[in-house]
C-alpha cells in the first residue's frame, strides 16, 4: 500500500478545471517531483493534498485512509504533512527557535525543553542551530528556507511537501538548498516536490509526475522524460538535459 494515493482528483473553479482527474501514488521513502508548465495546476495539487484547498472530487488516501471523506480530521492530517513554502513563510515576529518550536508545543504538546531539544536537533541538521535567536528578517533566503525545512521536519511528518523551494532564491542559495534537500532524499525522507527547477528535480527525484493542463501527462524517471520524443515535454524542458 502506498503512503499517499491520489485518485481522480478534480479541482474546479466555476466550471474551469485546474486539476482534471489527477492520479498517482507516493510510496514511503520515495521522492517524487511534480513538474509542468505554469498554470498546469502544480501548486493547486499540493494544496489540495493537505486540504488547504478543498478538492471538488476524487480521493486522497494517506496511509490507506481517505482524508477527503466527511468528518476526516483535517488538522491531524495537516500536522502529519510537512509543508515548505516557496517564500519560506516563517513567522516574522518569532525567533528561529520559536518558529520551529511553536507547533511542537501547541500541537504536539511537548514541554518547552523537549520542543527546544527537538528543534535544535533539526536546526543543527540544517546547519542553522547557531541562528536560533535570529529573527527571519536577519536571514538570507537560503537560511530562511533551511529554517522552514527544519520547522517541517521537527514535526516528524510522514511526508514532506515542497512548493517551488528554490524559485525565490539566487543561484548560490539554490545550490545550498538543493544540497540539503538532496541529503533528505538520500536519508529516504518521503518527498513530494513541486518545482520547475530541473537541477533540483535531477537531485531529489525517483520519478517525475509531469502535469499538463490539469492532467498527468506523463510519469517517469527524469532521465527518461528528458529523452522523450514528445513536443509538450520537449517544449517544457527547452532542450535541456
Amino acid at each position, binding site marked *: 500500500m502506498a503512503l499517499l494515493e491520489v485518485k481522480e482528483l478534480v479541482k474546479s473553479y466555476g466550471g474551469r478545471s485546474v486539476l482534471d482527474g489527477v492520479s498517482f501514488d507516493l510510496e514511503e521513502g520515495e521522492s517524487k517531483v511534480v513538474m509542468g508548465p505554469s498554470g498546469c495546476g502544480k501548486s493547486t495539487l499540493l494544496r489540495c493534498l*493537505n486540504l*488547504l484547498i478543498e478538492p471538488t472530487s476524487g480521493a486522497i488516501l494517506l496511509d490507506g485512509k481517505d482524508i477527503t471523506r466527511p468528518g476526516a480530521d483535517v*488538522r*491531524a492530517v*495537516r*500536522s502529519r*504533512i510537512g*509543508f515548505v*513554502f*516557496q*517564500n*519560506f*513563510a*516563517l*513567522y*516574522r*515576529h518569532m525567533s528561529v527557535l520559536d518558529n520551529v518550536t*511553536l*507547533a511542537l508545543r*501547541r*500541537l504536539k504538546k511537548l514541554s518547552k525543553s523537549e520542543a527546544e531539544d527537538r528543534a535544535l536537533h533539526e536546526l543543527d541538521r540544517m546547519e542553522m542551530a547557531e541562528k536560533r535567536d535570529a*529573527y*527571519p*528578517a*536577519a536571514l538570507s533566503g537560503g537560511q530562511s528556507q533551511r529554517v522552514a525545512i527544519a*520547522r517541517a521536519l521537527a*514535526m516528524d511528518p510522514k511526508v514532506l511537501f515542497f512548493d517551488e523551494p528554490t524559485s525565490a532564491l539566487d543561484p548560490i542559495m539554490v545550490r545550498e538548498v538543493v544540497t540539503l534537500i538532496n541529503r533528505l532524499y538520500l536519508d529516504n525522507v518521503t518527498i513530494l516536490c513541486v518545482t520547475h527547477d530541473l537541477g533540483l528535480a535531477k537531485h531529489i527525484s525517483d520519478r517525475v509526475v509531469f502535469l499538463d493542463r490539469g492532467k498527468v501527462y506523463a510519469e517517469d524517471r527524469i532521465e527518461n522524460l528528458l529523452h522523450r520524443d514528445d513536443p509538450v515535454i520537449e517544449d517544457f524542458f527547452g532542450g535541456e538535459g
Partner: protein
Amino acid sequence: MLDAFPFFADVISYWPQIVRGLRDTILLSATITATGLVGGIGVFALTLSSKPSIRYLTQSYISLFIGTPLIVFLFLLYYGLPNLGVTLSPFAIAVFGFTLNVSAYNARYLTIAYKELDPAELESGRAQGFSRFQVFRLITAPQSLRMSVPALTNQAIQNVKDSSIVFLIQYIEFFAQMQEVASRTFLFFKTYLFTAFVYLLLVSVVVLIARRLERRLAIPGMSASVGS
C-alpha cells in the same frame, strides 16, 4: 510646591480638587484604553470571520462609530437609557460609550496592519495544523498588534485628551474640577492655562511610555504599518 509655581499659586491652592480630578481622569483614561484595546481586538477578529454577514455587520459598526461624534453616543446613552428604564452611573456610561468608539478605531488600525501581513505565513500556520483561532491568536493578532503599536498608543493619548468631554455627562474628572475652580476664583486664564499644562504633562508621560513600548514591541526588520 506653591513657591515653585508662584504664578499658579491661587489655582494650586485648590489641590485637593485637582488631585481628585486627576485621579478620575487617569482612572477613566486607563479604563477606556484597556477596554478599547480588548474591544478592538474582538472587533478585529470579527472582521476576519468566515461568515460574510458578520464581516458586513462588523464593518458597519466600525463605519458608524468612526463616522459619528462620540458625544452623540454619550448623550444617547446618558439621556436615552433612562427612558428604557436603565440607569447607569456617569462613569459606566463614559466607559461604555468610549469603549464602543475606541474599539472601532483600534479595530481599524489592526485591520490596516493585517493587510501588511504575509498571507503565506497564515497559510503556513494552517498547513502546520493550527485551527483558524490558533492562527489568529498565535500569528495574526500578535503581528497586527505589534505593527499597530504607534497607532494604538496614539489612540491612548487621544483617550486622555478626549476624556475631558465627559464633564458634559456629569462625570467630574480633572477638566470639570478645573471648571469649578475657575468659576469659583474667576481666574479663568490662569486656571485654563494650568489645565493645559497638566494635560500636556499627562500626555507627555503617556508618550514616553508609548515610545518605550514601540521600541520593545517592534518586530525586527518590519516597520509599523500605521500611525508611525
